[in-house]
């Protein structure tokens, strides 16, 4: 097919909403204006880990412009939840509003509804919570060491249990110990990534508006409008048909707007008051309270031959989920699915654990689970190259997966383009490759 016949490939295609952006006419969730709209602000935990002794909302309720407050006692349906419960992920572990304990600093406890954002904020600041502080856990390996008590009864060892009682997403392929025994070199290191805030320019938020027909319309900037609706309905114990969720242009998401963080409580507040309710995260909440990309720690051990072939790779990794599960079990599955990187290694052992700590719950961000895996694996590849004195490009070309190779997940590799991609990158970077490496393709392993 000639380029002429292709409508899109190889061309610049106009972005449909660019003109509307440039004119300032794109509609975001916040661009609807309702009279008599209430504003919701959250009173949040000041402690990373504590027993709640008492919650006193009387001063907040008496604060000027405050219309009502909501605590866990007002929740008509679930008290704890998980966003993936509908697809069988569980147990549900995260309180919608904290009751007996708080497990991270910023955990929501009391929602305060005010006539203005300022009235709600002032009211929320007057909620009094008496805490009995508990020791916090902030390190993934410490959390599962057995020396610390469980953060919740759901996870006795502070890590997630996958179905069939697996404490980790696992890969077992070949025999790594034998691979290590046969290897000329052992290369080992530990890698750590940071939590990263998605930091969209538009913070998380929604507006819930009761209609005369008993339905509630929700204008939201969620990245997953049906998912948010179904979860809101499940949390509140109402029929999804009672909710009309309207998405719009999302003012930046990057994975940071899938947590259903604002809708359920806003709908409850709208049901309770019969008035439109707006819940918009402040910039501070967006940075400190909304979930981040999980921090990951990976311990990698490779067995390598003198000629550069990696014959065994063992990875133990820990995803810091923060205090609750959210979507982390899925994140660690994807993470493990990315192992052992785009390389063919005959012996692979992976344990990828989801670990609970007293940090803010973490969640999705672009390439959920995959970025941390690539980061650590590629640093490790450089370390291997250095250890055996081999050009890092050649090391990667030698080990890159080819079509027809059996991957560690017991899937035969198809549509590989790793070799050609490295060759093209080397050329762009002006890095000379020896003739036999230039001649490699994804269809054979001639050079090895």
């Amino acid at each position, binding site marked *: 097919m000639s380029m002429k016949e292709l409508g899109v490939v190889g061309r610049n295609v106009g*972005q449909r909403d660019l003109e509307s*952006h440039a004119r300032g006419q794109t509609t975001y969730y916040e661009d609807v*204006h309702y009279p008599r709209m209430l504003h919701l602000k959250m009173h949040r935990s000041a402690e990373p880990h504590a027993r709640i002794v008492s919650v006193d909302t009387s001063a907040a309720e008496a604060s000027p412009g405050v219309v009502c407050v909501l605590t866990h006692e007002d929740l008509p349906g679930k008290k704890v939840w998980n966003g993936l419960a509908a697809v069988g992920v569980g147990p549900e572990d995260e309180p919608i509003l904290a009751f007996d304990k708080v497990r991270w600093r910023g955990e929501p406890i009391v929602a305060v509804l005010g006539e203005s954002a300022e009235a709600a904020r002032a009211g929320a600041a007057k909620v009094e919570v008496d805490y009995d502080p508990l020791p916090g856990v902030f390190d993934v390996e410490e959390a599962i060491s057995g020396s610390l008590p469980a953060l919740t009864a759901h996870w006795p060892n502070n890590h997630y249990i996958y179905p069939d009682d697996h404490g980790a997403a696992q890969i077992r392929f070949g025999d790594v110990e034998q691979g290590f025994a046969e290897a000329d070199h052992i290369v080992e290191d530990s890698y750590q990534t940071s939590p990263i805030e998605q930091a969209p320019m538009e913070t998380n938020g929604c507006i819930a508006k009761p209609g005369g027909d008993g339905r509630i319309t929700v204008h939201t900037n969620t990245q997953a409008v049906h998912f948010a609706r179904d979860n809101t309905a499940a949390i509140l114990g109402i029929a999804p048909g009672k909710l009309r969720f309207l998405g719009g*242009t999302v003012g*930046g998401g990057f994975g940071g707007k899938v947590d259903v963080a604002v809708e359920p409580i806003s709908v409850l507040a709208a049901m309770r008051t019969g008035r439109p309710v707006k819940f918009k995260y*402040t*910039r501070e909440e967006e940075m400190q309270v909304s979930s981040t990309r999980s921090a990951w720690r990976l311990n990698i051990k490779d067995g390598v031959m003198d000629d550069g072939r990696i014959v065994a790779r063992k990875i133990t990794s820990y995803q810091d989920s923060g205090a609750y599960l959210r979507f982390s079990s899925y994140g660690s599955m994807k993470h493990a699915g990315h192992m052992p990187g785009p390389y063919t290694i005959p012996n692979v052992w992976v344990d990828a654990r989801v670990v609970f700590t007293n940090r803010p719950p973490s969640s999705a961000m672009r390439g959920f689970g995959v970025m941390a895996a690539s980061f650590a694996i590629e640093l490790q590849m450089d370390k291997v190259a250095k250890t055996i004195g081999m050009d890092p490009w050649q090391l990667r070309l030698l080990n890159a997966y080819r079509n027809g190779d059996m991957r560690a997940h017991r899937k035969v590799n198809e549509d590989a383009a790793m070799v050609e991609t490295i060759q093209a990158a080397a050329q762009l970077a002006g890095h000379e490759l020896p003739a036999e490496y230039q001649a490699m393709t994804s269809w054979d392993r001639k050079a090895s």
Partner: protein
Amino acid sequence: MEDKLIRLAVNGRDEAVVIQPLATLQDVLRDKLELNAVKSGCGQGGCGSCSVLVDGELQLSCLTLAERVGDAEVTTLEGLNETNAIVPLQQAFIENYAAQCGYCTAGMVMAAKALLDRNPAPSRDEIVEGLSGNLCRCTGFAPIVRAVQQAAQALSDTGEEAS
């Protein structure tokens, strides 16, 4: 403190609005006049998404008290398209793919307009400086800078005003 009636000149119109004490220009423009191009990414002067012109000067409307604007002429992005025709600066944003989610775009265009109105032939460094109070998380700044460069070029070719 009591609610209060103030008058503002916005996009060539006289507006009378009742405001709460300490209301910001952003509150008034967004919530009272429903000029939705005025965004609110932080409400504390850190992002530039609420940028407007006050007597031609770039201002963060979230840090401007509505009462203090007085007789000054306020211009929001909506004010650039009173005749519905798109202006060269907006056209340059479109042609350079200088927006993705679009949340920062209104503020970016206003900052660029303020710059080009005072300096029609800015250097690249001057453009970067002129946009330094405006954050974008999606697009990357290079296409935005290119858009302003193209707009400046278009202006010098035609001798027109930025917008």
